[in-house]
């Protein structure tokens, strides 16, 4: 397993370099002149040149790339061209909110996906209907799900809140930035519940499509492990149905599901941008959608780098988990 981890970490280096290169090229082709964005359009030529020099834009392009790479490695993502704040510190402020959302969604995906997979693989009552619902569910755009969720659970049932992260004005902002954790640390369980209520709908909207995908893959992979010889052996040995399912069939069916979860992460990131914009959760998604409308490319570039890094790291974690679930992969 360590071998896998080491190999994947090494393999991530060229990927991350390519990521920085892509973002760098995008910054070069963007029609916005970063110098003008900094000094304004009416700045005299000397000021313009000085700013250009200060930004390092008078150097050859390859040198600029390595400077950019160096800054990025040190966590310096430049300043926002609209608000003049440091992009990296902004991201650190907004990231926990998004991670909280994505983790909650992951929990929901696991629960719903496994339920769907088990139900359809074992042909529980009503599983035919479930399958049609699943195909349709995978086709629903996340903003339709969000709109309907808002109408049903807020407007008609008035059960759950639909805007923001919390209804408290004095929510703790430290020490971790994760409100779920911070509220418990501060000893305020009511705030914890409130945060959870704000999380359910957005997380559920993100979770629908991946949960369906997990359910489908788990179903087909369970169907083959349930037919496998070792399952018959386990049955012959006298093991009960649950034990066969959990210890033999499910464990062997896990690997493709994990691989799929890794693939789904990219879509989840994209969807969390939309969901945060819709539910006004102050996370990376809301931040990037506001940067889009302001044309703040520095911020978008910074977010792309950070999210890309997280995505690569998450996929390494998935690989290691896969090796843990199925030791044959590690060979």
């Amino acid at each position, binding site marked *: 397993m360590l071998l896998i981890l080491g190999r994947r970490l090494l393999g991530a280096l060229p*990927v991350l370099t390519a990521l920085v290169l892509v973002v760098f090229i995008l910054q070069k082709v963007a029609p916005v002149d970063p110098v003008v964005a900094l000094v304004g359009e009416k700045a005299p030529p000397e000021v313009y040149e000085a700013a250009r020099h200060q930004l390092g834009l008078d150097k050859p392009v390859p040198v600029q790339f390595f400077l950019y790479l160096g800054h990025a490695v040190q966590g310096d993502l430049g300043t926002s061209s609209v608000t003049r704040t440091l992009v990296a510190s902004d991201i650190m402020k907004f990231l926990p909110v998004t991670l909280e959302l994505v983790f909650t969604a992951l929990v929901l995906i696991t629960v719903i996906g496994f339920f769907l997979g088990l139900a359809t693989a074992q042909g529980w009552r009503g599983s035919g209907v479930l399958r049609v619902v699943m195909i349709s569910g995978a*086709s629903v*755009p*996340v903003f339709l799900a969000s709109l309907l969720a808002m109408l049903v659970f807020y407007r008609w049932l008035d059960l759950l809140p639909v805007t923001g992260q919390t209804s408290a004005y004095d929510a703790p902002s430290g020490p971790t930035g994760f409100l779920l954790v911070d509220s418990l640390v501060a000893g305020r369980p009511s705030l914890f519940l409130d945060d959870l209520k704000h999380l359910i709908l957005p997380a559920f909207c993100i979770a629908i499509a991946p949960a369906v995908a997990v359910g489908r893959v788990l179903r087909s992979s369970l169907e083959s492990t349930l037919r496998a010889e070792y399952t018959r052996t386990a049955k012959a040995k006298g093991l009960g149905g649950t034990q066969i399912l959990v210890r033999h069939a499910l464990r062997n069916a896990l690997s493709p599901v994990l691989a799929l979860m890794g693939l789904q992460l990219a879509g989840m990131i*994209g969807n969390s*941008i939309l969901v945060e914009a819709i539910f006004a959760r102050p996370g990376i998604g809301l931040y990037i*959608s506001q940067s889009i409308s302001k044309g703040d490319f520095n911020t978008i570039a910074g977010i792309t780098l950070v999210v890309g890094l997280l995505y*690569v790291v998450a996929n390494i974690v998935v690989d290691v988990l896969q090796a843990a679930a199925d030791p044959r992969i590690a060979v």
Partner: protein
Amino acid sequence: MAVAEPYVAKDLVPVGTRFGQGLRQYFQGTPVAGWAAFAALAMMFFVAIFAKAIAPYDPLVPAGPAMSAPGSGYLLGTDTVGRDVLSRVLVGMSTSWWGALAVVASGVVFGGLIGLVAGAVGGVVDSILMRITDVFLALPGPILAVAVVAALGPSYVHTLVGVSLVWWPLYTRIIRAEIRKLRASPHMEAAKISGSGRRRRLTRHLLPGAVPVTIITASLDVSALVLMLSSLSFLGLGAPQPAPELGAMSAQGMTNIFSAWWIPVFPAAAVALIAIVSNFAGDALRDRIRDR
């Protein structure tokens, strides 16, 4: 008493064009659900082609009182400035549909070409091309697409370009795998022995073999692309106002969700409809092709 019937040859059926016959074979034995899916697909094409003609009003100018509820003369209601939602949704569906098909086509051509070269040439070329592809596969597509479109500036063409730029690696992987499998198969050896040249082997013996798997992948990909394109448009990265784009319409209607739910909900539902139709049609197509 069972008597063996003497064998009588059936009348020869005139063979149609090769293309027609191929199609007939494809669709023989398609289940009802499959036919329903194909019918829905045909409807989708019909709407996409004739959207402007079917639309009861001009999608760009006000047609009646603002925010009238669905029903009263305006089947899906009107938006905040009185434009007919149904007309805008129809035209928006057409834009989304052609956009998704265009990106799929570019993915097939561009990604497929790389996959074809990598698979057919092999060796160093193969490993270099596949390393590059892997790097792109390892990066999160949606966020890269956002960055590309944001850098180029919002417009519908830029959206298509941005998504195409991140969408090809899937096709490269699939087509390369298929080509490599085919390259090792006996019919390639036979072609070689019978004296076909390199080019003929590539175009007549390798390429056609990769077509079914490409069609399957592409048809199941359309729904993902419709969702992706509409999401970008929702974020304001599509055609600027007042172009009728489903994602953008939904996003602009968001502020009125509690007073006029039909303005954001119907465009979003139209996206879902396109995605569902292409998903089912893709499924049916896969079943047909795989069964052969």
